[in-house]
């Protein structure tokens, strides 16, 4: 299992870069992943709104929300979500939020 050295801690990730233990997630880790995985130098308020929404939803339901729910509850339209996270909602947004890799063709 690959690890990323991040500050003083070693964080285990899978080969796709998804964090293995959601408890190891911090905002600093999200910033680091944003740079490494998405090429984003800084995360805007809207990025954080999506990331925190995903984490809250996952903690409550144990699964990533539908893009439909994400759009409805954040008030962002679909196109804007794709713009915010170039790798898409699963491999971009969910990865930065420390959620596990989804099943299926993603």
């Amino acid at each position, binding site marked *: 299992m690959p690890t990323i050295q991040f500050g003083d801690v070693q964080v285990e990730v*899978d*080969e796709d870069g998804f964090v293995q233990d959601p408890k190891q997630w911090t905002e600093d880790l999200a910033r680091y992943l944003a740079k490494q995985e998405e090429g984003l130098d800084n995360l805007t308020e809207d990025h954080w709104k999506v990331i925190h929404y995903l984490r809250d939803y996952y903690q409550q339901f144990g699964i990533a929300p539908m*893009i439909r729910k994400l759009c409805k509850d954040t008030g962002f339209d679909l196109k804007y979500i794709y713009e915010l996270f170039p*790798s898409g*909602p699963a*491999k971009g947004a969910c990865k930065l939020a420390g959620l596990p890799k989804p099943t299926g*063709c993603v």
Partner: protein
Amino acid sequence: MSVQGLSPHGLNLKQFSQEFRAKTGPALLSSLDACVRCGVCAESCHYYQADPRPEHVPAYRAEAVRRILRTQDPWTRWFPGWFGAEPRRGRSDEEMLRALGDVIFGTCTQCRRCTLSCPMGVDTGTIVRTARGVLARHGLIPEGLKATVDAHLKTGNNMAVSREDFLDTLQWMEEQLQSDTGDPQARIPVNKQGARVLYTLNPREVKYFPLTILAAAKILYAAQEDWTFSTEAWDGTNYGLFSGEDDKAAEIARRLEAEAVRLGVQEVVMTECGHGYRSFRWEGPNWLGHPYPFRVRSFVELMAEYLDSGRIKLNPAANSLPVTYHDPCNLARNGGIIEEPRFLLSRAVREFREMTPNGKDNYCCGGGGGMLAMTEYSQRRLQAGQAKARQIAASGARVVVTSCHNCVDQLNELNRHYQLKVKVHNLCEIVADALVLAKAQRPAASGAAAQDA
């Protein structure tokens, strides 16, 4: 360590060999025996193209299976290597089978390009699939692949989307359809008894990328098709093809068949999903042991029929950037759908450029065989996509179109990894953007155009 000892998964070499041979039909038997070790298959494989190691020669993978089978021949007991059997080298049965698992799950996308190049017609993809099935039955299967099959059987779709969420997403897209067509009567029908067409989806469309649902609905609307979704069986994927578990693959196919019969449709149309099409159209009747009482086609074939018969009209001015087409292995080489996407693109885009080679000789994108679900092999998957990345770059195209949601994901990863600077789209998005609607409403930007904006 006991040679005959059961592994924790309850599988030893003897059982593996017995179960494998029990699944062996005439086609597989000839593939097992016919290899003459000429090595022609090496160059045909995208793994070998990217990293020319002996382990990446297709014959090596098939031979890895044969070497395990030969351990059970009585004369190979003392000097296994002399007789082409896998030597033990101090390993337990389970360790030897795990090593086999790494080869057959981790270095083959079952694309079958090697079979076309083989002078003996050895079907390595099928040898690999059969061996996967035996290991999977005993729990020796990558976790992500298992979870995808399990989610499908447990929840009716491989991403565990609830019925409520499915309907909510369809309603959302229906509102968008009405807005784009300017027709408040435009519908995305659900559970319509006696509809002509039952349309299926890949769950990633519903969960994360619903604009392809909108694009398909727009084309079906323009063609004035009598169609429906089903809330009971809408997932057209079948990861049983990749896990090799025939019983689970058959159960997934059986559910879709039963729902199509219940609704009384004339035709089941598979979304742009390569393995889903191959599974349901070509493999399903074999798994189930009988033909379906309805027709099965890919949406690509249906769109081509609409265009050919004048039911839809396209304006290529809507897609002005140079476009190339990636043939999904399971539609082209393994499904025979080669001319239809090219016919559609010839009318939907201004400039079309072929990759070389293409059609039945295309290179796999590297994401086939369930690779996207097996995160432990992601680095190999990206490396194995190098041949495809080179083809795309050489085409000079700015947009890569394909007819497989799985290929779309892998091509997007190749785009980032190899910095190809292209856009990747499903064929239906390109067709939808080029639609000329009969009532002369001008469709608002959607699908490909919206994502490119």
